[in-house]
């Protein structure tokens, strides 16, 4: 049924549909509305779960780790510093192959402290072994969480899934979301979690043992293989979801008006909406331009991206994150993917904008496209800098 829902409401409603048994979280802006809605659902008996109010994000992640190791479905949500505080535990959740679903209400990291949106927080977790999916709008945020459990709990995956949802821009925005009416259908799509190994007094195993140098390399190889192989499972999860619920926003990537494009903008998350409006206008004026949405950042769909981009002239990468001391992250990975596959013909220009909640307007996007088409090999240039501010003496 179509409803107007705040992003946080849409997310908590889809979590209710997935029926996790243990939820643990620590409040942090802009994740708060999600955990407030979930607390209310538990308080009203609409969601039968243990909601553990912990004293920190580190413990929130640790609680879901422990509960997940017992074989029950779990959920947590956080943002920014909270995610960085969880980081140590998330590495363990991944290494111990526990299918926890984590929402990140994407927010800038300190310092300077900023409660506003960008993707620097989840990007810092890119090497953790957690799958990272990025939602474009509230509809996708809703659908993606249910798919996240399906992916995480696949016996061949057994990894945490981080669902990235732009803080405020999505979490605090009301818009039309088509929700699922019958929980039975979700149960059909998402059968009860059945873990091969768990903490069970009738079948005891030891988890989290120490690995000597003779073992560790292989253990990490297996982890690496598992996340790489999860691509097909992410695709299947999206396709099955489409069959059952009729909704599809892409699986790993999603091309938009790319058929005859010679310029393609690559981006992730909520900024895609604004970009689509600009591209539609440019299309009307005859410009051959398209968009490539990256929906799965980890595993990184390198083959799929290269296939989509190999015949175009210009790829413009727009990202709300920076690798300090390097530059663009997405742009770097795309350039690497093209180079590795010997595709040298695409001019890749990467730009960083919108950090710390700086608003991205259609005019920004338009100006950026006009500028990018005249440039070559830009690697993570900051776009939209206020030069007066840069040199200001306060």
């Amino acid at each position, binding site marked *: 049924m179509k409803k107007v829902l705040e992003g946080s409401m849409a997310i908590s409603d889809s979590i209710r549909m997935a029926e996790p048994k243990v939820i643990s979280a620590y409040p942090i802006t802009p994740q708060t509305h999600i955990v407030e809605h979930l607390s209310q659902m538990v308080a009203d008996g609409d969601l039968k779960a243990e909601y553990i109010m912990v*004293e920190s994000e580190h413990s929130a992640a640790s609680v879901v780790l422990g509960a997940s190791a017992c074989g029950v479905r779990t959920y947590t949500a956080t943002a920014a510093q909270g995610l960085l505080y969880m980081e140590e*535990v998330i590495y*363990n959740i991944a290494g111990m192959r526990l299918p926890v679903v984590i929402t990140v209400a994407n927010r800038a990291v300190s310092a300077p402290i900023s409660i506003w949106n960008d993707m620097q927080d989840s990007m810092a977790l890119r090497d953790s072994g957690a799958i990272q999916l990025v939602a474009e709008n509230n509809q996708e945020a809703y659908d993606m969480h249910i798919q996240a459990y399906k992916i995480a709990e696949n016996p061949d995956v057994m990894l945490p899934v981080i669902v990235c949802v732009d803080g405020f821009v999505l979490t605090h925005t009301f818009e039309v979301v088509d929700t699922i009416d019958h929980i039975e259908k979700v149960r059909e799509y998402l059968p009860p979690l059945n873990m091969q190994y768990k*903490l069970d007094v009738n079948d005891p195993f030891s988890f*989290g043992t120490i690995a000597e140098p003779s073992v560790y390399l292989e253990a990490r190889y297996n982890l690496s293989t598992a996340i790489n192989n999860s691509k097909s499972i992410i695709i299947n999860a999206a396709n099955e979801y489409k069959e059952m619920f009729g909704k599809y926003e892409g699986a790993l990537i999603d091309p938009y008006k790319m058929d005859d494009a010679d310029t393609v903008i690559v981006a992730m998350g909520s900024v895609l909406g604004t970009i689509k409006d600009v591209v539609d206008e440019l299309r009307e004026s005859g410009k051959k331009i398209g968009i490539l949405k990256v929906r799965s950042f980890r595993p990184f769909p390198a083959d799929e991206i290269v296939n989509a981009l190999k015949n175009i002239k210009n790829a413009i990468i727009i990202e709300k994150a920076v690798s300090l001391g390097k530059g663009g992250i997405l742009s770097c990975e795309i350039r690497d993917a093209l180079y590795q596959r010997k595709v040298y013909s695409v001019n890749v220009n990467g730009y960083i904008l919108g950090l710390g909640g700086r608003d991205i307007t259609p005019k920004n996007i338009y100006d950026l496209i006009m500028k990018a088409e005249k440039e070559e090999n830009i690697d993570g240039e900051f776009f939209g800098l206020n030069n007066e501010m840069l040199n200001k003496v306060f």
Partner: protein
Amino acid sequence: MLTNMLTKEDTHKQLFTMGHTGCSGCAQSMAVKLIMEVLGKNTIATSATGCLEVFSAKFPESSWNIPWIHSLFENSAAVASGIEAALQITGKKEGITVLSQAGDGGTADIGLQALSGMFERNHDVLYVCYDNGAYMNTGYQRSGLTPYDAFTSTSPSGKISYGNNRPKKYMPEIAMAHRIPYTAVASAGYPMDLQKKVKKTMSIKGSKYLQVDVPCTPGWKYEPRYSVKIAQLGVQSGLYPLFEAEYDKIISVKKISKKVPVEEYLKLQGRFKHLFKDEAGKAEIEKIQKIADENIERYGLL
């Protein structure tokens, strides 16, 4: 806890089994063995990073014949909270003990926040702190539970130092301040007392804190055969008071049967040998005696 007859086969079926790589004479492994004997097989355990975790679970080996999990250094209590919550919501908690374990560093230093959270939420978990008074796993660095004047590699004695210059943190009282239903202090030197306390925790719902004094042969620098003797002297000198508390009230203490001067305790351990070199060292020993006397007074140990 023992039956009249124990066979070799029986010993191989212990819940915390031999084959671990703990040091010869390790009092911690003794305590774990004693605790597991009482708790039985319907136990799910967590361990913080530390000696116990490293020597008991080196892949693909494990000394644990129960479900056991290690995650990190500071989150044993939080992981145990999650396990307890999962058991509660799935209706499997009845008859199962959740045991959360850490060393003194994992309890009183880096793990204190998560432990406090677990206490505050009063999870039905038995938390055991194996107190060997320093970070032994990483080579004897000082922790918040290192006793006054003890030599550790980060609180060394030196030309102007007599070792650790801060008194041992009163961790059991921090636990009691949370008004959890049961707090107890035990010692590897008194196994029956230890097992009696563990047994008691099994009938109490909510958070239980048990701190066990476990001498460490390489860290305290003594011959392995003295582990029990030193633990007993710790108690008999008044430096390691054993007691039980319900909520914030102490309900029983283990009386000192034969009071010994702290010197008897200190002189067996290399970590205190710098106190026996000169006159100033004697003054330090007197300070330690004062700590013991205050304990005796405070807890009514005589």
